[in-house]
């Protein structure tokens, strides 16, 4: 044990004797490990943020659209589509939407020509819409049965449209939808999974049918499934809707796009981590090179240590330990720098920092492993030096 302590002391003394050189050869492990930690940490943090967003949104939202079937100009679902879909035991809730085309919406009459050129989407949605989309209202309320029973014209608008129309929360405001004055009763929160709805006007199916003769056949369906059976539910929807053939329903899971983005980041992560690994290997070559030169420069020291009774094994260990200490210190510093980069960038981007302690340990171990391999040649070379040749006796 005391020999190990003595060896460590000798190794540290050798390294601190040429501090600048030691710090320079530490740069290899520092750059390599910090690149690996930063690459993995940043992509994990970005993914962690995405996963947090996904967890908040839920990955169990399925969108089904009536597809154009041969000979049908305006494809739509059957009237009782929600009942049919909710009959599936993996479906928690469904909401049907009607996309109303050819209706110009404008904040006031004089702006109609502009909004004819740049139309605002108008949809009719049932009362389950907010629950299924898992969004709330920024202000006001949703369209209720009272509005329909009294033939009132109530509309809820998206946040983007509220900004565009300079809508002040709580203000009594009407907008023109297809020439009819609709009172804005509420503003929806932003809908991350369907951002195009942020600029939409939502009215009730009854009002749509009454004013625009749309009928009550939905064109789009949003379904919340059992989170464990999203894929199964997505596959079962066309059959449940039963339009005659499954090709006439297009289904998608909006969060798939976000998950694909996360997968793309993994590829980038692998590339950057690989480059970090290469930097580590190059750093290892640097250690081997500098340590080999150091052995030549310190040949007299090696000779005198041998003359003082230090065996070849102890000389080999002395240089191996110097190499390992460089790898260890460089690895620790690199892990620290990498962690700081991850923390700094995550903070800048507003991400949650995801940094596994095992990643830091792995970085340090990798640096040490490289330094062990790098130290093999110089330590063997040092041990093989003959003291008679280095001490120049006689």
């Amino acid at each position, binding site marked *: 044990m*005391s*020999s190990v302590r*003595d*060896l460590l*002391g*000798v190794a540290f*003394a*050798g390294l601190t*004797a*040429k501090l600048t050189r030691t710090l320079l050869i530490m740069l290899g492990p520092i750059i390599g490990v910090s690149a690996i930690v930063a690459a993995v940490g940043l992509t994990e943090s970005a993914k962690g943020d995405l996963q947090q967003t996904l967890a908040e949104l839920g990955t169990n939202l399925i969108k089904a659209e009536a597809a154009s079937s041969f000979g049908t100009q305006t494809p739509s679902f059957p009237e009782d589509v929600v009942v049919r879909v909710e009959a599936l035991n993996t479906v928690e809730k469904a909401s049907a939407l009607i996309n109303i085309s050819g209706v110009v919406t404008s904040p006031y009459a004089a702006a109609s020509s502009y909004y004819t050129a740049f139309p605002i989407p108008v949809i009719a949605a049932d009362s389950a819409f907010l629950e299924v989309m898992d969004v709330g209202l920024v202000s006001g309320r949703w369209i209720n049965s009272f509005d329909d029973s009294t033939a009132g014209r109530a509309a809820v608008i998206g946040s983007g449209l509220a900004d565009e129309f300079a809508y002040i929360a709580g203000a009594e405001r009407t907008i023109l939808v297809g020439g009819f004055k609709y009172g804005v009763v509420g503003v929806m929160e932003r809908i991350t999974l369907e951002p195009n709805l942020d600029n939409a006007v939502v009215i009730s199916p009854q009002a749509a049918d009454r004013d625009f003769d749309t009928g009550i056949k939905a064109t789009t369906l949003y379904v919340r499934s059992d989170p464990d059976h999203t894929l199964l539910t997505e596959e079962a929807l066309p059959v449940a809707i039963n339009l005659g053939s499954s090709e006439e329903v297009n289904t998608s899971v909006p969060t798939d796009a976000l998950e694909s983005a996360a997968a793309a980041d993994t590829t980038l992560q692998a590339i950057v981590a690989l480059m970090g690994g290469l930097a580590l290997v190059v750093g290892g070559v640097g250690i081997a090179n500098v340590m080999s030169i150091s052995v030549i420069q310190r040949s*007299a*020291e090696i*000779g*005198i*240590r*041998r*003359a*003082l*009774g*230090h*065996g*070849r*094994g*102890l000389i080999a260990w002395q240089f191996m330990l110097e190499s390992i200490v460089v790898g260890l210190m460089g690895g620790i510093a690199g892990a620290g720098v990498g962690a700081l980069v991850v923390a700094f960038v995550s903070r800048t981007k507003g991400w949650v920092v995801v940094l596994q302690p095992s990643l830091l340990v792995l970085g340090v171990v990798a640096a040490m492993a490289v330094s062990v391999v790098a130290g093999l040649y110089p330590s063997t070379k040092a041990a093989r030096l*003959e*003291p*008679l040749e280095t*001490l*120049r*006796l*006689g």
Partner: protein
Amino acid sequence: MTTDHLLELDGVSRIYGEEVKVHALDKVSFSIDAGEFISIVGPSGSGKSTMLGLLGLLDLPSLGELRVTGKAVTELTDAERSRLRGDVVGFVFQQFHLIPYLDARRNVETALLYRGLTAARRREMAMDALDRIGLAERAGHRPVQLSGGEQQRVAIARAIVTDPLLILADEPTGALDSTNAANVMEIFRGLHSHERAVAIVTHDPAVAASAGRRITMRDGQIVADDLIPEGVS
């Protein structure tokens, strides 16, 4: 074969080269006993360096037998030979060979490493050795901050700190001025005792004359082994 000699060479040859063989030492036999003060003299190429390497266990004979405190050196492993060297021999070199990045005390302590000593005990022994050669107050100085004479005294402290049975010196005054050389030789005279032998390889007749026994070498052989009545022995 058992022996009472501290060190014994029995028909030792040291041959270099594979195809063209060079006999640096040729069937040399002699012994060193505790308490002797020996000088080894001879012209360049006479085999002094080879002899020093063998006496210091830094080299092995090609032929013959070298025994140290009765142990046949050729039968030892490298680690055992290193340990024996550290225990039995203390070296002093012409060029001092101090480790440049260590101060005087830590240079002396280098000889005490890997012996199971605590750092405090090592420090105490090193300071004691430096005190014996009058350099305790320079313990914290690095070699570059010391004069040649002081560096050689630090090297002597390093050689004696393990209390070896044999001190081997290679031209210890070769790099010193006459005053420092005289001081160093005075220290050497004080080092040899009934238990310890001192062997100095030198070109300097004055240094050789101060020894009690002079071994003269030529062409790899001992040509004279004289006792010097006025020497310290």
